[in-house]
């Protein structure tokens, strides 16, 4: 029993809780009421983990920041993601991986 608990705790600590999150900086993402368009478009993508945030998407209008949750073991399709954001009415700028504490980690190389 105690072994199972330790294993479970280790899995939680070392598991991909934030490893599958990404942050996209989006120019112009300041309009709160119309930010739902980005959520609507992005949440439909097949690699988005809809169990987190609001259908897999969190919008922070003060920072023009879009956080997405990607299903573990699924590939992130950046062109599709950026196209969804553009279709939602805004301009994606760059995309970052996120650390376990939720901070920006590494810039993902991508040229639209």
């Amino acid at each position, binding site marked *: 029993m105690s072994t199972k608990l330790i294993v479970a705790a280790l899995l939680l600590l070392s598991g991909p809780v934030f490893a599958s999150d990404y942050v996209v900086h989006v*120019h*112009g*993402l*300041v*309009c*709160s*009421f*119309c*930010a*739902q*368009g*980005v*959520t*609507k*478009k992005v949440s439909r993508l097949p690699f988005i983990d809809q169990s987190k945030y*609001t259908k897999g998407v*969190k*919008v*922070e*209008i*003060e920072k*023009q920041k879009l956080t997405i949750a990607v299903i573990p073991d699924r590939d992130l399709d950046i062109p599709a993601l950026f196209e969804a954001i553009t*279709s*939602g*009415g*805004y*301009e994606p700028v760059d995309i970052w991986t996120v650390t376990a504490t939720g901070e920006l980690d590494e810039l993902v190389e991508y040229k639209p």
Partner: protein
Amino acid sequence: MRSSITLLILMAVAPASAHQPVMDMAPRWADGYGFQLRQVHFGSDDLVRGKDDIDNPLGIERFVDTTWLEGVYTFDRSLRATIKVPYVNQRRVTPINGVGVRQRSDGMGDVILGLPFKRYKNHGATTQNWAITPSIRIPTGSSSGDFPLSDGSWDVGLSISHSRETPRFYQLYDLYYWHEGSGKRGMQTGNSWGLDINVGLHPWHNNDNNSGLFTLWDISARHEDAPNALNLTMASGGDRVQTGPVLMYYRQNFMARAEIKLVAYERFDGIGTSRGNEFSLAFGLTF
């Protein structure tokens, strides 16, 4: 004198803005659509000659309630189509042969179709857009009776607007013009133009459930050419400036909006009933 009162009291002030505010902020996403139900009330028993209040011994008055069902579809963020369908309930006391006669009418008013073309610019923490909106007003309202809902004309409008928004502030400038066609029964409403200015503050927003409050201050200035002598609708000639606060609450895809407009300046081409204070309440959904 009596005939001029008779003539001009018959002319009220029509809300004829070419601006299509049907969820102007949303939807800005491709294949988005929305609906809004908006109730507007205005009217008064204040009689005005030129810019001055005058005695009203006959109890001349006019009150109008309009329920607007409005819809919008966004093809992509640069092109939308809008429709506004009014249901009008209006009543007035008008002088006929020296006596104040009560008249009333209700029914569907003139439907307005708009085609907003928008060009967005997004810079970091700012988004702004320019919009050109051609509109057409279809004479779906009845032009019969003593107090018709429509003059029966096809009218065309054009608006040019600019809005700019940051997470905290919002501003909108909208200049519009309506050209009135020839109506039925010889009625001819005057052309009109105006300027709407909205300045807003965004005091509260919750990122977790995308809800918050918007507060706006609205200023509307409008000029309308005098209608002809045969016009029996609410049309009037003159200038008017209205101003007042707007409060908007939103949560996810739901929006509620309340607005009060007070008359700050009013001038008639003769004698008319003041538009009075205006109240509107709206509920909208976007998808």
